[in-house]
């Protein structure tokens, strides 16, 4: 039914199960415990995991398959967000038209930027995309403020027209919904000290992410995907084989731009605000890091990378000294203080340092990203089990 082979079906099922059970998996520590700091199972962060997962999956279709390294993909994410918020302001609080609109607008942007940028390859392509994205960011931050609300970010106001939902009484801002299901409504479940949050917004994002993942799987396994990998491998041979690389790369660029727009639209659907920083080069760099960190060209890598970075940004940055003291309070005072001093540079305001060190460690020791790490562990496990010498030949990671 899904037109996937057994291995891929298995991967999809595992990803689906993990995603749907994420509210439980990501909250492994009891609510009151000291380690609860590491729980990530709250709606906002889970939404970010899957939404940035979508962004990275889309980026990987371009970078992982064709090898074209775009340094401006955040522009499409930003455009998607702005489009969605404008739909909320003008049309309806229903997320469906907003998401559809953001995908379309981001796609149109991608057609224009891709058409121009793909005239060059290699680093020249990267710089062209970077230039377009930085121009978008700078304009959105300043000159285009009437459309983007500049530094503050575009947000809903009490006097938005909203043609379909009509003007509400000015009691408060309306909430994004899908045919009445409010994105932020959350069911909370307490079991013996553990707390779990199941939010509508997360499950909508998760389902869309699974669709996006499935779609990318199909693209990877399609003749189109084969052509894209051929472009990465040897563009010269491809053209002497009678194939025109340009429309293939453009299609890949536009598809990945639409993925970014989808992610941007979803971000706005979860929290109706669109900031210009979403388009800055650092944001574009982030998705590159996510993809490479997870494993470029692999199916699941980008999703892992996205989760990894977002986890650090949100969890490590919130650990402060008083939490450290709490953790180490069982130690004698002197040792407690010593340990706190030792860990202090790496947490809270120092979370960037930890992230930088981890980037380096992953690239140095796991050139294939986290996926390669997983494969190595898997191989080790299999080898121990079988007791034989498994083939050391590296197969292209899928």
């Amino acid at each position: 039914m899904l037109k996937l082979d057994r291995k891929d079906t298995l991967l999809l099922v595992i990803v689906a199960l993990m995603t749907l059970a994420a509210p439980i998996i990501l909250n492994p520590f009891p609510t009151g415990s000291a380690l609860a700091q590491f729980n990530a199972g709250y709606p906002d962060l889970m939404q970010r995991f899957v939404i940035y997962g979508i962004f990275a999956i889309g980026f990987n279709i371009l970078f992982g398959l064709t090898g074209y390294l775009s340094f401006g993909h955040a522009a499409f994410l930003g455009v998607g967000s702005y489009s969605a918020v404008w739909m909320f302001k003008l049309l309806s609080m229903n997320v469906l038209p907003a998401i559809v609109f953001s995908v379309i607008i981001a796609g149109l942007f991608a057609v224009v930027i891709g058409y121009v940028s793909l005239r060059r390859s290699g680093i020249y392509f990267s710089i062209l995309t970077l230039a377009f994205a930085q121009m978008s960011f700078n304009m959105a931050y300043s000159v285009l403020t009437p459309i983007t609300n500049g530094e503050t970010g575009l947000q809903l106001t009490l006097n938005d027209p909203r043609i379909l939902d009509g003007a509400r009484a000015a009691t408060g801002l309306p909430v994004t919904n899908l045919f009445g299901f409010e994105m932020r409504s959350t069911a909370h479940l307490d079991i013996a000290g553990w707390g779990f949050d199941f939010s509508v917004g997360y499950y909508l994002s998760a389902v869309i992410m699974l669709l996006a993942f499935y779609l990318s799987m199909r693209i990877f396994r399609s003749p189109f995907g084969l052509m894209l990998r051929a472009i990465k491998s040897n563009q010269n041979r491809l053209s002497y084989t009678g194939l025109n690389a340009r429309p293939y790369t453009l299609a890949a660029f536009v598809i990945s731009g639409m993925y970014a727009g989808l992610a941007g639209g979803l971000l706005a659907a979860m929290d109706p605000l669109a900031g210009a920083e979403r388009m800055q080069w650092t944001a574009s760099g982030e998705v590159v890091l996510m993809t490479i960190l997870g494993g470029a060209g692999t199916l699941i890598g980008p999703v892992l990378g996205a989760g990894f970075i977002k986890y650090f940004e949100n969890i490590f940055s919130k650990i402060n000294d008083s939490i450290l003291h709490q953790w180490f309070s069982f130690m004698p005072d002197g040792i407690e203080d010593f340990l706190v001093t030792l860990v202090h540079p790496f947490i809270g305001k120092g979370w960037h340092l930890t992230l930088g060190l981890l980037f380096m460690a992953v690239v140095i020791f796991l050139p294939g990203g986290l996926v390669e790490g997983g494969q190595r562990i898997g191989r080790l496990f299999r080898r121990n089990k079988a007791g034989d010498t498994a083939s050391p030949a590296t197969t292209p990671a899928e």
Partner: protein
Amino acid sequence: MSKSTYSRRRVLKSGALSGAALAMPTIFTASSASAFTNEPTGDTVTFGFNVPQTGAYAEEGLDELRAQELAVEHINGIGDGGMLNTFSSKALDGTGLMGKRVTFVTGDTQTKSDVARATAQSMIQKDGVIMINGGSSSGVAVAVQGLCQEAGIIFMAGLTHSNDTTGKDRKANGFRHFFNAYMSGAALAPVLGNAYGADRRAYHLTADYTWGWTQEESIVASTEALGWTTTNKVMTPVGAGDFSSYIAPVLNSGADVLILNHYGADMVNSLTQAVQFGLRDKQVNGKTFEIVVPLYSELMAAGAGANIQGVYGSMNWNWQLQDAGTQAFVRSFGEKFGFPPSNAAHTCYVQTLLYADAVARAGSFNPCAVAEALEDLEFDGMGNGPTTYRGADHQCFKDVLVMKGAESPTSAYDTLEIVEITPRAQVEYDPEHPMFTGGALGECNPGA
């Protein structure tokens, strides 16, 4: 479904299947276990301190964090009590808040609206905070204020100077103690008039984003009211670094005052470079060329070093004030950390105490009750003299400081000196002043 209410923290009976929750999530929006978002249930209550800890404003954010930590200690009865001793309201007695110990969580806004909203979300959803305080930029303040309004908790703004925070973007759940661009203009103009005369031609360099624009609008209005003319208003990109190509044409334009509507690193660089160009050694129109920086902070003064000597600007508060509240705060901050607090630290400290006091007086953590207790509150003893929290726009009205770079500072901390304490009456304005219209407070949202 019913109204657009925030429906987090519905407590399911432990026996219920999570599957049912997935299938019909809205079932539970009808039943309500708590009256408002994150109602504290245990023996603690959690505040969220959302400040920049990385990026250009990290030092300012960390100073805010120190002050916030100090405020929590004082509320919980640790230390010397600081401003609680001088605060006109005596509802707080150093035994925590309504019988609960105050704890806090921290987050890194990176001075980006998006990130700040994400950390605020995590504080609300994960840590169950009842109030968020802090921040070092107006964009962030407006974004987080909007989130708190939607989530149904109180936002006590940190350092945010744009008119919009309590102007077009004002919110019922948001409160600002810090002063704003209009007040800077109103306080500065008379001092500038006295020092430089009524016949001056001003050239503006303005950071090209919302705060810059409101700052420029305010200072242009108040200096023109003084009789000055405005020769040019030039937008500069945020983070330009090298401002030489904007500074070089200034002398030639016939202007004799340069007004730098910049903040943070932009201001440090533009002022340093303007001084390097020798502008202040020049004579134009028979007068000495002058530079004005409408909004000062300790961060900027430290960054610009000797270049600020003799340059006028305004501030919300300064540790050199002599009132009892200031002295109490500076003593308790200085003893703990070894240096005097910044005005960003002061505003966050005061905001935290004001929130706690409002809770204590209202006898409830319900944000609507707290908001009511804050609205039109008259208080004193927190520095800045008698202060009003105006109910119409949630803006504090108090004395504003006009500062000048000290000619011969004795230490790293007195590089700015207080020139004048502008009385509050001079900086007051109508809540519907044209610079502040375009938005509405809306109604207080308790969430849940």
